[in-house]
Structure formats: C-alpha cells, structure tokens
C-alpha cells in the first residue's frame, strides 16, 4: 500500500533539503518550512522520498503507512 509523508513539526528546523529532493510532494512556505502533500505517494516517487527522508538533518521527515 502506498505510503505517505509525515513531518514532525517539532523536530523540523527548516533546513529545506527535503523540498529539494522531492519537489513533487514538498514545497517550502515563506518561512522555509515544508508544506507536505498529505496524499499517498504516487508510484515512482518512492526512491526520491526515501532520499528526502534520509537527507533530513533532524530526521523530522518520515514515511508512514496511512
């Protein structure tokens, strides 16, 4: 089943690496914090999503089963 992205807003410090690696699902707001698409990940983006999760310096981004 397709997973979806979840960001822990407390851990998130707005580094912005996630939005660079997954612009299809994550954009940055005017303060540099991620706006994450809440819908399940379309197929084909899994790999980039995992890269984004792994690139977060504070491990704020996660992939979860809905």
């Amino acid at each position: 089943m397709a997973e979806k992205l979840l960001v822990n807003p407390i851990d998130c410090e707005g580094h912005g690496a996630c939005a660079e690696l997954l612009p299809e699902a994550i954009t940055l707001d005017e303060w540099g914090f991620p706006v994450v698409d809440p819908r399940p990940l379309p197929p084909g983006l899994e790999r980039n999503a995992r890269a984004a999760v792994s690139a977060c310096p504070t491990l704020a981004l996660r992939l979860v089963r809905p």
Partner: protein
Amino acid sequence: MSGINSSTALWYTSRATGVVALLLLTAVMLLGLLVTRQGRLPGLPRFAVSGLHRNLSLLATAFVAVHVLSAVTDGYVNIPITAAVVPLTSPYERLWLGIGAVSFDLMLAAVVTSLLRRHLSRKAWRAVHLTAYVSWPVAWVHSVFSSGDLQHGPLLYLAIACALAVIVAVLWRVSAAASDVPRAERVGLLMSAFHGKARRRQPDDARPAERTLSQ
C-alpha cells in the same frame, strides 16, 4: 638498494592513508558545522551539505580502517590489532597511538550511532555526535606526533591549515549560535518584533458611538 618489500609498502600505505584520513575528517568537521548553521556550499543544493558530510565521513572511516590495518599488518613494528581500539596497549609509540585509538573509538561511535539514528533517542544521538569536538583534535594530535611526517615540509603546512580551518569554523559556529534565540524565547522575540511594532501607536480612550480611531 634493498627492494621495497611488502612491509615497507604497508608502512607507506598506513602513513599515506593516515594523511588522507586527516584531510577527510577535517572536511567532515567543516561540513558538520555548516549543517548545524543551515549554511550552503556555493553552487550546490542544500541537501549536498548534509549528504557530503555523511558520505565523506563514511569514506574517512574506510581510510582510517585501511590506515589501521596496514599499520597492524606490517611486521616491521609490533602493533597488536587491539591497540587500534584499546588505548595505550601498543608497545610501539604507546602514547601517540593510544591517542589515535581514542579518536578512532569516538569516531566509530559517532558513525555507528548515526547509521542507527532512527533507533536512538535524539538526546543520545546528539550526545555521542558531540564527541566529534574531542575526536577531531585528538586525531590531529595523533597525526602530527605519531610519526615525523607532518612535522616538516608541506605536510606540516597542511596540518596547520587543517587546524586553522577547524578552529575558525568552530569559532564562527559558536559566535553565530550565541545570537540564536533559544526555542522557549522565540515567541516573545517574534511578538516583540511584529506585535510590539504594531501596537506602538495605540489609541486608547472611550468615545461616543462611531468614534474615530486616531492614527
């Protein structure tokens, strides 16, 4: 002249990989400091800073591993394998190699805890990662004093350059962080900046219906 035997080759390998490891670890320190300040490398995307920090640290670990193994395997001097992780157990250059072992232990801890970061509490991971501030200087001391290589010539300048780079970077990080507002106080600061300004010209008294708001 006596040929270059395998022992000599191993010894040279150890010295060479040691130098490269020091360079890589210096780069890893600098990149780590850059990540904490959300800095960027010119021309590179944001994820490159943390990505490079991670990849170079793994590369550095590989180089340190080769550095250690080649020194141990080489038969010219006696260095037991355990001396790589247990300080002060090498009959050869007991002190300086012991220091190397300390640095290597801390480095391994930082790398392993980072690889297993998902399973650790934030505090635990951070506590171990902060030992990098000890590990790097200790590695530097080990590099400079356990053989004469970095004590003269270009390698000496290299060692000094690495030390200066890390010192400057740490000072920059500390001074920038000093003007950081702790999380608990950020609300007050932002309210002061926005709301305080908005309220500075505040009209006050009661007036009859349809009163005019003073500017």
